[in-house]
């Protein structure tokens, strides 16, 4: 393998890592705040991508992509906000809330996927990338758009972290995540804060969906793969810090692209799951975590 191929594979791994980071962070934020695992996350990615495709089809001109991203992210935030009251809030007083939320979010995923299928049909679609030029990067020819995606993904994660740490709403959100009873006694409207969390998570999923949709073809069931990878990322990295799943996402992305080159495309999920099992056996709290689960 030459240096050029190495750079190319590494860059595609890093790009993949950026997308996984975006998706896994949304999943991790919901897990640490609401205490449930959102199996509809993959469907959020799909729906976000399709909505952006629809808008970019109907809006002409260079700003079409930007408008598509903005619409998709906004609509998905609102949908996530509303879905909290339908999927998780009704079960929160039940002692089996985690299990019930698995069922209700799986149901939502199924409903969303089939709604997408009914509305947009089973044929593959692709969002036209706004930038098609390539640049020479250490001998490898790489799409300029890849760098743009990576930049926006990291910027979005940085923005989310800043929102959680510096703004009053973000801080109340973390407070509700860490001690629900004390947050209620402080007069915080916990259900509303949880709904905002699910909304933010859905918005990041939509952003990731738009990017995936402009790199590959999308179809109504393509969300299953991102969901599986995000699950691996969250388990591999742990959720002790905001950044834990982000580091793990880049590890997974790079491992995936190198294993696809050396072992073949169909072996990379097996390798990733083997890694996940090894981590669960040796360091169950995650590679970049300690035992506590916080935001």
């Amino acid at each position, binding site marked *: 393998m030459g240096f050029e191929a190495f750079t190319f594979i590494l860059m595609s791994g890093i790009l993949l890592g950026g997308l996984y980071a975006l998706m896994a962070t949304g999943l991790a934020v919901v897990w640490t705040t609401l205490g449930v695992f959102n199996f509809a996350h993959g469907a959020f990615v799909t729906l976000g991508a399709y909505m952006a495709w629809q808008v970019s089809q109907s809006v002409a001109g260079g700003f079409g992509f930007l408008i598509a991203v903005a619409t998709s992210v906004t609509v998905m935030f609102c949908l996530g906000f509303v879905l909290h009251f339908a999927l998780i809030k009704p079960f929160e007083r*039940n002692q089996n809330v985690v299990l019930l939320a698995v069922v209700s979010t799986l149901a939502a995923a199924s409903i969303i996927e089939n709604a997408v299928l009914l509305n947009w049909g089973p044929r593959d679609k692709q969002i036209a990338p706004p930038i098609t030029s390539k640049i020479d990067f250490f001998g490898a020819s790489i799409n300029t758009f890849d760098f743009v995606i990576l930049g926006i993904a990291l910027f979005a994660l940085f923005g989310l972290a800043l929102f959680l740490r510096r703004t009053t709403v973000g*801080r109340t959100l973390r407070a509700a995540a*860490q001690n629900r009873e004390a*947050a209620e*006694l*402080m*007069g915080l409207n916990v259900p509303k804060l949880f709904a905002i969390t699910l909304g933010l998570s859905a918005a990041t999923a939509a952003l990731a969906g738009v990017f995936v949709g402009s790199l590959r073809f999308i179809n109504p069931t393509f969300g299953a793969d991102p969901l599986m990878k995000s699950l691996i990322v969250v388990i591999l990295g742990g959720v002790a810090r905001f950044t834990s799943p982000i580091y793990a996402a880049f590890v997974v992305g790079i491992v995936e692209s190198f294993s696809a080159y050396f072992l073949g495309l169909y072996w990379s999920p097996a390798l990733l799951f083997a890694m996940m099992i090894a981590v669960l056996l040796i360091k169950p709290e995650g590679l970049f975590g300690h035992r*506590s689960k916080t*935001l």
Partner: protein
Amino acid sequence: MTKPLLELRGLSGGYPPVSVFRDVSLSVKQGEHVGLFGPNGHGKTTLLKTIAGVLDPWDGGIYFEGKRLNAVGKMQARVSHNLNYDLFRKRRINALDVVDAGLIYVMQGNLLFPEMTVEEVLDIAPRAARNRPGVAQMRRQIHDLFPRLRERWTSKIRYLSGGERQMVSIAVGLLAMPRLLMLDEPTLGLSPKLRIELSEAVRNIRETGVPLIIVDQNVEFLTSLVDRLILFDHGTITREIPAENMPKHAELMDMMFGGAH
């Protein structure tokens, strides 16, 4: 005669199906400081948690300035063992209404938000006081009340000592601009030095005129602070002692346990 600030009428409650306190009637007037004393495990904390809206009251009424905070009527006993039974039961009291009314409860041994810094916690604390003025002034007052917190301003709560956590909890309660503050065992598990520091702070809070309900096991601490002492035993109020004949520790033990101590 002035209207009572907080009035409990025949309040009962507990953790279903275990009844913890029964038929508690109590009224607290504006500017009054009331102490609640009783053995461990007899329902003082459960009573305060019920008033604060964390637990559902079983029967009776909680009135704050004449306004009823809990649902009217008796709580129905659980009639089914269906796992989803709880989903269809309405809460009988809403903690947000209680906080909005200005009734603030400071939990005992509260961990608060372990991963947040003191600064962050005190920044979001006044969310409960959205409609009440004077938060900026209270913020300055907090610095004078708890000088120790200023040194730990950027530490996470989980790295604070028990006393410092208690100070943060009380500061959070104060920043909600309470009309009535309920302190649950503020001196629990503190070293004597910290206890003195904390009781000094509580004394200063008392000076500001905020009505207080204090639960504590330390008789000297409690009797020096309150206008009225309420003895709480086996889930109900057994006796009220006015400030004039506040008992010493030994006398109090005599009253409650008939000389066995």
